[in-house]
């Protein structure tokens, strides 16, 4: 299963809650692709702090205009 979440279309205040809800709703082994107009690395730090060891973060595309990150929920 592959979900694509284009966060560019989401209003600023909803961006991070939407991303975390999408992740939390995944089952282990599932993934979604985050699409953004800038490198979402601050979000990765937030994932590290709040969901440590639960996710895989893989850049599929790194700019300059579009970033795609595959975020996968690990089997714990």
């Amino acid at each position, binding site marked *: 299963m592959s979900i694509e979440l284009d966060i560019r279309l989401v209003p*600023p205040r909803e961006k*991070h809650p939407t991303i975390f809800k999408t992740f939390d709703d995944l089952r282990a082994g599932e993934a979604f692709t985050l699409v953004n107009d*800038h490198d979402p690395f601050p979000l990765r*730090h937030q994932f590290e702090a709040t969901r440590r060891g639960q996710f895989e973060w893989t850049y599929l595309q790194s700019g300059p205009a579009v970033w795609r990150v595959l975020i996968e929920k690990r089997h714990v």
Partner: protein
Amino acid sequence: MTLALSTAAVGGVPEDALGPFDEVCRGRGLDGVELVLDDVGDPGPLCERARAAGLRVVALRSERLPTHGDALRSLAICSARLSAPVSIPERLVDRASLAALAALFEKERGRLLLAHGTALDVVVELASAVSDIGSPSLGLAWDLRPSERMFERVAVLLAAHALLGLVRFHGGGPEQNGQDGLAIGQLVMELSSASKTAPLVLCPSSEAELPRWRSWLASRRSAGCGHAHDAREIRVDVRDVEPKDRLETILSAYRALGRGATLRLTVDHDPSCMFYMLEATEPAGSFAFHSEASVEDGLEVWRAEVQKS
């Protein structure tokens, strides 16, 4: 880096409004103003009144080159008296007269900047001509338009390099939402790493933008581009900044903080991502972070305080 606002942002300032205009700029956290000179006459009296009004003039700008020797000398004297460089479009300046111009400004202890755009061949030619004369009274001013592309901007920065005495950023302020993603935060960072002394002047990109600038100046809300020297406190409101440029805007403000100083952020969403990023990238115990949400005019507003210890 010094950040200033051009008087062009209000379509020119009547002389009796110079003081109030500077007050508004202070309220925005700006370090000073660029005074745009009239198209005609001797600039001396206006500059004297600006000085008397305590206007923090960072730069002078003339859109013409006085042909009369006395008016030209007066321009150089104004520059010296206000300790502010005067910029003139480079296309008005005959290269053969450059050495004489430089000598005049040097004699009066003023500084002349030749204003250019982002056409690399022009900048290279100009930088070479100015370097050949080798006068400390001569430099370059860059008129940077928001639609210009990244690689061209970098090339121009490299070509102008140490000669760069001013960057006029057409746009910024209330215009920054519509600028092909080039918001002020990122640009300030690039420029501050390239040239520590050249002030950045915010200027409307067209006459049509003047109403937006006027309402921006009249509103109390910051657009997150103001800062002051040696601030114990920096206030940044990123609600008007494009989402993708917010991080750089915030980080450049955080880097500018001295020890013990506080960054006060206003955001329209939960700023905890900022906390996690600092926690991951800054030394342990180097900052304190506090944030709280409130509702203002029916909208959720978050205020965060980051203190650098």
